[in-house]
């Protein structure tokens, strides 16, 4: 990109003693990783709102630059395409998250509420509001239209049981970024036995999400 290097969101994390400078290219790289991981993961991943904020800033910056370019200049078209591509990635990322929040709403809220202090948040504050509103809206609708007209012992429904959970045993493709040793793979059927694998850097695999879930959040593997 032609823009100068910009800060990442480390001013949000007050406990960082050093400021991390990320080039715009690195920032977009981080967005792409977050986008692909979210797209291919069966469950909602940790929110990356610092990345989202920085990318939005970057887009505004690029749009401003574009206004100053002479009309009809060939560069304008290329810059425009780049803005469109980044905006598509960002929108798609946020859409993936919203869709999972809506699909698994009671479980997402449960996970968020049971996070311990110091653990990174699953939802951004805005996503949390959205999830709570979605829950309240849906529950209220079902109560008013049907539940309150049912016999007294059936007037409530346990949302956690009624709404299915994400299937963590679904298979995902991944590429290994950092070498991992002794990953335990659980048996799928009774006649299989558990075994360990080593994941070499740069290799690609098809595995059950549950086995490698912690590696996705640590950034050791990338879902593809």
């Amino acid at each position, binding site marked *: 990109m032609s823009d100068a290097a910009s800060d990442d969101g480390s001013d949000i994390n007050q406990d960082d003693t050093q400021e991390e400078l990320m080039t715009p290219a690195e920032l977009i790289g981080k967005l792409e990783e977050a986008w692909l991981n979210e797209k291919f993961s069966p469950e909602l991943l940790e929110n990356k709102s610092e990345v989202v904020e920085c990318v939005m800033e970057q887009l505004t910056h690029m749009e401003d630059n574009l206004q100053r370019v002479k009309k009809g*200049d060939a560069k304008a078209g290329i810059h425009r395409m780049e803005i*469109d*591509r980044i905006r598509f990635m960002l929108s798609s990322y946020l859409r993936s998250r919203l869709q999972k929040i809506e699909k698994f709403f009671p479980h997402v809220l449960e996970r968020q509420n049971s996070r311990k202090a110091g653990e990174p948040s699953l939802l951004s504050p805005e996503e949390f*509001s959205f999830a709570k*509103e979605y829950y309240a809206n*849906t529950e209220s609708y079902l109560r008013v239209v*049907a539940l309150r007209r049912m016999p007294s012992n059936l007037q409530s429904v346990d949302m956690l049981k009624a709404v299915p959970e994400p299937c963590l045993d679904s298979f995902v493709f991944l590429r290994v970024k950092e070498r991992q040793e002794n990953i335990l793979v659980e048996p799928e059927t009774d006649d299989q036995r558990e075994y360990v694998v080593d994941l070499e850097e740069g290799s690609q695999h098809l595995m059950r999400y549950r086995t490698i879930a912690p590696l996705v959040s640590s950034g050791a593997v990338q879902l593809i």
Partner: protein
Amino acid sequence: MSDGQLPAFSEDGLRQVLQEMESLFEQNQADVNEAKVGGRADLIPSIKLRHCCLLRNQRCILAYLYDRLLRIRALRWEYGSVLPATVRFHMSAEELTWFSQYKKSLASFMRSVGGAEGLDITQDMKPPKSLYIQVRCLKDHGEFEIDDGTVVLLKKNSQVREQEERTASGEKTGSGHPDVRPFCPQHFLPRWKCEQLIRQGVLEHVLS
């Protein structure tokens, strides 16, 4: 109800199932009393059976209602925040309330993205392949302004045809070429501006 369309809300169906639930419950109430007071333990299997039916009915009702909500939610993403009258006609008052609340939540969320004006994530649904696309106007839509200030009149059967965008060196930047049929109104417009109009059926993307 398998094609994603929203049929009319079945008020009758819902009422019938609720009535059946009420009558099953009353029978159970009576039998439970009999079993407790009259010692009729032989009634217990039928009590259990009715209870299973009640649970099943509850599940069916909730599944029906929730499935409709999911379709209605999809409408927001497909059509935008104003639903066509034909669709609204098939929705119950409570569904309209749910939709209106959902719209509001979504708008709040989108506005909060990034901190400035937010980001409309109902746009950019497909990866951008080209800068400009060729569109045909299917309905009258009046004037349409694009970023560089030019105003295009979107009119069905209009005779106006838009120039292609050309760079300083005279090369075409967009895809496609002007349609040679003289009586079909064609426009060559920026893709991101047209997305919503294409989804609403005002413009048609011409693939050449």
